[in-house]
């Protein structure tokens, strides 16, 4: 039975052929059957070769009057899709069938004919097909209409002429004819916006009754609504009433379609949403899984944009957590976690605990990830969430699942200091009985970094030392390193750690012995400040060179008197020689490519910058902006910049890409003119040594600025470099190069660059916890704007703050709106903003801005930004 599809159809043909030729060509057919069976080796060849033959045999079957046989003939002709020459053979038979009075022949012959027809034949048979559309029999009419839908893609001009006949179908009494006619009418007018809107307008009054046609009409209606708002016709939505009336249709199919259409309207208001949410809520408790799935899926989407609208359904949603259908259960949980508030967390967790044991790992992983984000959202609830995570950690589970849990605990420990001690103990308990070496080593490493800084580091030692006795060599080695970190960081533990490490030097594995010996000598060293610093660097510093370079250097190192020097390892990421790269295809993959694109995101930048000696002394990175393009798309050299803000420095990271295969750029540098940025003075720059084709590299320029001051300014940039011609066939560059430069666009440091987007979970609490005395309020006129939403977006962009509680979205026809923003300003000052917007009839917008900050001067600074913006 494992035969591929083509093969089966052939077998199928075989069966048919078999009957009429029985007795005459039995032997031949049997032989043919055998060929088909052998054809498992090469079904495609077989089907192609045999297709023609089969086709001709099959056409003979037209002589038979047996209806079943005739139907199979139609089916086969469609599957075989004969070549034009062969088509001629059957068209006359098909036309005969279309003109006969057996409706079943008629309908199917039309469908077959339209599948194999070409343009000249189509014009020839147009009259017959048009007649079929208005045929009394719905089966024939549907067949012709659906064929029209298929043909429209290839021969739109011809089909468009059928408009009149097709429109009659919309008023047919048969529901499917209605559906097909409506689909074809719409498709014919697809590019005529006005005609579509007219069509929809005329039909929404109630002439369409069939469920499928009604669904279609709903889709067209929401398309028209979308078009109207795209073309600036906002405000009233006359067609909304039609959608709402569909919510009361007798079939669930139409109700769902309408509810979904309403939830997907652009800028839907909560008043418009309510009736749709109500019907979806009813579906949630339906005995039919499909209905529950449809409802929870739609509500899940609504929860992303309008979490408040969905909260009414939370109780019904909670009962779905234990749904038999796991897709429904998972959707329900993720929806609840989006809409849930702080007070419902405990109840929710209890519900989830009950059903965790009987779902598959992949769903558990989804749940654990959702809980992690919940914990970040409601830090106060960490105790419950941590208990939950430690409980599930103890249960059975696969690697991916356990890793998700461990990752979540680690995230919580990092984000919530209070959770640290209990979290570390949970992890310790986990490694006591952990079957995954990878997780054990990761946790041991993490313990080594976090453990020594806790109130009582000694309690972790037992767990770590147990590893040395009970685990495999990899884990033992990791445990030795962790022990050493404790010994080094906690002076009081040093003697005990030394004893423990001494026991490890007799380990059966050489790596474990080596590490123990090494750490013993580090710990036993005299306490001069110098060695102290060195060992600290050695134990806790990260490897400053890319692993790939380290590996090559070590491979090239030949044992000699000279000691291997880690400083000789190049720190820059070399791209592969061009020729080699070509051999691999356009883009290098795997290890070679990975370091070339250092991970972006804050952590990635932080690591990257601290690895560059020139910038290492700048302190902690405050903020990194997103990419700002400094060149047009598709120019010779593509450059974008990332602004890194430090307390008293700013570093520009220029990401450059050379898009010319014939060129190699060397000594790539950016010359920055800061004459329009008075408070900045250039502190350091780092050129890019070589920039081959299509492998991005970075050049850096650093500026000093007054500490803690949000200085602003404009910088103009010029890219300077040495161009060397490259022979693309060999990939070798010429020795001599020419100096050249390339003008880049200007770059600005604006006030928003000093603001980090940090959300707060409960704006009101946060607002009230700040001193009312420090509140600064002022009013501004923002001039004429297209809409409230646009003005709000402009203010958010200007301030660079995080909008809270979904207040950045404005109901489409609102005249006033309040937007809540939060952020952290340079110097780690928490800032909250409450901006009230109002619009008058001339679209003139006024804003009342209330700012509360931990530092009064910052609140003033925010007002200054707005006043100058």
């Amino acid at each position, binding site marked *: 039975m494992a035969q591929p599809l083509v093969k089966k159809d052939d077998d199928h043909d075989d069966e048919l052929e078999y009957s009429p030729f029985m007795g005459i060509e039995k032997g031949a057919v049997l032989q043919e059957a055998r060929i088909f069976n052998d054809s498992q080796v090469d079904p495609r060849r077989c089907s192609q070769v045999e297709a023609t033959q089969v086709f001709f045999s099959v056409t003979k079957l037209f002589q038979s009057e047996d209806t079943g046989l005739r139907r199979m003939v139609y*089916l086969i002709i469609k599957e075989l899709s004969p070549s034009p020459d062969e088509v001629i053979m059957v068209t006359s038979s098909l036309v005969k069938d279309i003109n006969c009075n057996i409706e079943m022949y008629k309908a199917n012959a039309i469908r077959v004919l339209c599948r194999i027809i070409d343009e000249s034949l189509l014009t020839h048979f147009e009259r017959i097909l048009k007649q079929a559309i208005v045929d009394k029999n719905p089966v024939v009419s549907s067949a012709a209409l659906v064929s029209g839908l298929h043909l429209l893609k290839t021969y739109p001009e011809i089909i468009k002429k059928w408009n009149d006949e097709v429109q009659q179908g919309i008023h047919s009494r048969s529901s499917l004819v209605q559906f097909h006619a409506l689909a074809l009418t719409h498709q014919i007018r697809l590019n005529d916006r006005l005609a579509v809107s007219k069509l929809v307008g005329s039909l929404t009054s109630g002439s369409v009754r069939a469920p499928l046609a009604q669904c279609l009409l709903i889709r067209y209606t929401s398309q028209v609504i979308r078009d109207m708002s795209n073309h600036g016709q906002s405000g009233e939505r006359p067609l909304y009433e039609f959608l709402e009336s569909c919510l009361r249709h007798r079939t669930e199919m139409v109700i769902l379609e309408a509810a979904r259409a309403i939830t997907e309207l652009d800028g839907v208001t909560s008043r418009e949403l309510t009736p749709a949410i109500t019907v979806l809520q009813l579906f949630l408790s339906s005995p039919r899984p499909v209905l529950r799935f449809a409802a929870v899926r739609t509500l899940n989407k609504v929860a992303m944009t309008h979490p408040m609208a969905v909260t009414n359904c939370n109780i019904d949603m909670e009962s779905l957590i234990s749904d038999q259908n796991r897709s429904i259960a998972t959707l329900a949980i993720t929806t609840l976690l989006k809409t849930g508030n702080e007070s419902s967390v405990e109840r929710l967790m209890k519900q989830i605990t009950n059903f965790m044991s009987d779902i598959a790992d992949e769903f558990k992983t989804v749940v654990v990830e959702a809980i992690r984000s919940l914990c970040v959202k409601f830090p106060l609830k960490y105790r419950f969430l941590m208990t939950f995570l430690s409980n599930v950690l103890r249960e059975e589970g696969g690697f991916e699942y356990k890793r998700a849990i461990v990752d979540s605990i680690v995230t919580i420990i990092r984000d919530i200091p209070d959770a640290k001690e209990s979290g570390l103990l949970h992890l310790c308990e986990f490694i006591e009985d952990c079957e995954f070496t990878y997780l054990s080593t990761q946790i041991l490493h993490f313990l080594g970094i976090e453990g020594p800084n806790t109130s009582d580091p000694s309690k972790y030692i037992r767990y770590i030392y147990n590893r040395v006795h009970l685990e495999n060599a990899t884990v033992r080695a990791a445990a030795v390193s962790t022990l050493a970190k404790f010994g080094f960081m906690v002076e009081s533990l040093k003697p005990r750690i030394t004893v423990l490490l001494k026991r490890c030097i007799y380990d059966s594995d050489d790596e474990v012995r080596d590490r123990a010996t090494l750490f013993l000598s580090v710990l036993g060293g005299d306490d001069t400040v110098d060695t102290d610093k060195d060992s600290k660097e050695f134990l806790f510093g990260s490897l400053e060179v890319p692993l790939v370079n380290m590996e090559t250097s070590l491979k090239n190192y030949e044992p000699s008197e000279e000691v291997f020097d880690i400083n000789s390892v190049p720190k820059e990421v070399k791209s592969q020689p061009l020729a080699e790269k070509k051999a691999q295809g356009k883009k290098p993959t795997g290890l070679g490519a990975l370091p070339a694109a250092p991970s972006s995101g804050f952590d990635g930048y932080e690591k990257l910058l601290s690895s560059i000696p020139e910038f290492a002394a700048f302190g902690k990175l405050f903020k990194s902006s997103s990419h700002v393009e400094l060149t047009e798309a598709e120019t010779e050299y593509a450059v974008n910049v990332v602004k890194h803000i430090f307390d008293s420095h700013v570093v520009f990271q220029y990401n450059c890409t050379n898009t010319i295969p014939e060129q190699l750029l060397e000594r790539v540098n950016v010359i920055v003119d800061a004459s329009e940025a008075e408070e900045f003075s250039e502190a350091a720059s780092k050129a890019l040594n070589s920039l081959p084709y299509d492998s991005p590299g970075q050049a850096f320029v650093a500026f000093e600025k007054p500490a803690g001051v949000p200085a602003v300014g404009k910088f103009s940039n010029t890219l300077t470099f040495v161009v060397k011609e490259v022979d693309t066939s060999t990939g070798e560059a010429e020795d001599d190069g020419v100096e050249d430069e390339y003008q880049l666009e200007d770059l600005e440091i604006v006030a928003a660059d000093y603001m980090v987007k940090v959300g707060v979970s409960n704006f009101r609490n946060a607002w009230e916890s700040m001193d009312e005395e420090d509140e600064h309020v002022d009013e501004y006129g923002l001039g004429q704007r297209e809409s409230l939403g646009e003005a709000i977006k402009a203010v958010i962009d200007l301030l660079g703050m995080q909008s809270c509680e979904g207040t950045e979205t404005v109901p489409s026809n609102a005249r006033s709106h309040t937007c809540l923003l939060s952020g952290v300003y340079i110097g780690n000052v928490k800032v909250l903003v409450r901006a009230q917007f109002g619009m008058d009839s001339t679209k003139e917008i006024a804003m009342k801005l209330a700012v509360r900050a931990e530092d009064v001067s910052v609140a003033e600074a925010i007002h200054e930004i707005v006043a100058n913006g």
Partner: protein
Amino acid sequence: MELPPKVKNILLLDSEGKRIAVKYYTDDWPTNAAKEAFEKTVFTKTQKTNARAEVEVTALENNIIVYKFVEDLHFFVTGGEEENELILACVLQGLFDAVNLLLRGNVDKREALDNLDLIFLCIDEIIDGGIVLETDANVIVGKAGINSVDPNAPLSEQTISQAFATAREHFTRSLMK
């Protein structure tokens, strides 16, 4: 944009996930290998669920799949991510009921293989090139169901029907090997 509801494929698999009858209407799975891989994933994902009483539903690779099992037969209808699941369910129910009527209530793998021609006709009558053609089981059966062994049929046709039956037997045997 394609607005009319679209069905991406109809699958009829056995209790081991092997094909009995399948029909694809889109190019999402261009090769036979891709089709088989998809069938395998769908089968494994739904295998352990109980879809015998009610039509069940799941999401897979940006598709919505509705399914129903009976005896050792697994029926699936796939549609796009944005599709109205109730329309897909309606198609599935139509197919399921039509097959049930055609096989006179004896719905299992053996009967399905014996009447594979009817099942293919049935699928052909439900969906045409991805567009819903008919969902009412009685109408589908009326169009696809052909009473091959009609005692009142004339002698000449009788032989053909008998031949048809023999052919069917032969076909089944070759499939069962």
